[in-house]
């Protein structure tokens, strides 16, 4: 009895292990959440709510889920001036993040466009590369 349990368990472990091996999903080249935490979280906060009057929220907003080229542009060039997000005024500048690679920017923007209440499609490294080329 004990042996047969061991056998079934072993088979199960094997099946699961093999199953795991059978889906050779390539890990994404960059981890959007990790990069967000490293480069964005301090100002935009862990929950994306930002800082009232200073750094805008990235939750449920067209600034994130809307026009891709504007969003990529903000990452590459930063943003200075007064803007309104979800009805509130924000005045503090955002620095340029052009030092990040196309892949890193794509991963961050895909992460924020598919989290924090945003339900938009992702952004590819190729789209970032094109935007980077066009602004030069």
């Amino acid at each position: 009895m004990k042996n047969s349990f061991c056998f079934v368990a072993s088979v199960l472990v094997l099946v699961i292990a093999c199953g795991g091996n059978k889906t050779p999903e390539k890990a994404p080249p960059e981890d959007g959440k990790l990069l967000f935490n490293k480069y964005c979280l301090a100002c935009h906060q862990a929950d994306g709510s930002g800082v009232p009057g200073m750094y805008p929220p990235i939750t449920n907003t067209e600034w994130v889920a809307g026009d891709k080229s504007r969003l990529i542009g903000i990452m590459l060039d930063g943003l200075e001036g007064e803007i309104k997000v979800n009805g509130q005024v924000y005045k503090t500048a955002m620095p340029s993040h052009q030092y990040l690679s196309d892949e890193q920017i794509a991963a961050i923007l895909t992460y924020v466009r598919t989290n924090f209440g945003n339900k938009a499609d992702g952004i590819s490294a190729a789209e970032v590369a094109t935007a980077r080329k066009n602004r030069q």
Partner: protein
Amino acid sequence: MDRKLFFCHLALSTIGLLALTTCNRTDKVSGPAADPENGGIVLPPGFSAYMVADNLGHGRHIAVRSNGDVFLALQDLKDGKGIVALRDTTGDGRADRIAYFGDLPGTGIHLHKDYLYFAHDTVILRYKLKADDLLPELTPETIVSGFKREYQHAAKTIAFDTSGNLYVNIGAPSNACQQNDRTPGSPGMDPCPILDNYGGIWRFKDDVPGQTQAKDGFRFATGLRNCVAIEWNNAVNKLYVVQHGRDQLNQFFPDLYTDEDNANLPAEEFFLLEEGDDCGWPYCYFDNQKGLKVLSPEYGGNGDSTGRCAGKKDPIMAFPAHTAPNDLIFYSKDQFPDRYRQGAFIAFHGSWNRSPLVQEGYYVAFIPFNNQLPAADWEIFANNFAGKTPVNSPGDALHRPMGLAQGADGSLYISDSVKGTIWRVFYN
């Protein structure tokens, strides 16, 4: 029997008299009644509070006229106006006349020589007060103009001495004077050119219209990143400021600082300023665990080395990192108990740069003073503005204390940046 009756009468009369005295005492409490639970804030025993007004806009600094009228600066225009004037006409302490005026938003606001001085990010104006009217003359005079439009630490805050001078905090539009601001690996500019026009306290004449920073400004003190809290202490004739320390040590120097290090470094510094002082920014910051200034990593520091920081001005007190001291007043009245006389109240707006650790601040602190210096450590005076613990993100806070003023009767007024609430705190 008669004797018994006599004692009965005596006992009853005594009780009656006591009851009357008690009633009289209750009746004698003058002034407005406190709100239930003091309008949501927590105060030391013996103190009470009520909301003077609520939902005024995003409040900044506050001023209270000798007749009790209150003026609140707004961070953003509300219905096209940047200042709120409030008056209580019924004696219940709550504002029932509320009027908006002024075409610019701003932070600094101060009553001085029959004028209301008001600091927008690029200009300092003054409005002539009218004897009895709530609203001043609506066309302001320009006292100082030409501050460049900035998008970081742009708020101007002001103080006046008794010798005809106006002091203006001109914050640095930068975190630590890197070549590329807030960018990993970007070195600090050396010398930091920002200090020529920012990152210090500039002195002007208090009643000369048409001044500019370049033409008329005198750099009174430098090496101050941003001092939203600035006040002249009339009791000792000295200028005091509280500095917002630099941000993001962990983010830009992860090899030197952990998230926890960043949450605790650097201190927010309380300075007694003398003419010509250099307080160290951007080259140095104050490590409150070590109790000294250390070299910033942008200038070659490793978290321990002190380098060129030896000669920089030390604070008279250091507060927890990132808690955002946004206003300072010295208590000069006698309504509060003796230990509050000449002491300092500081409004800590509350942190954002402790993430991912929980945020701190969101209280009004008190520091007892003896002459020019603190007489004891700081303590929390008013708390629970955020309305919840922990505050994980600043957006969680229901209120954030922003401005302070004392009324002619010695009450303490506190303004809020989230909903534009004003509390009046009094001692029972």
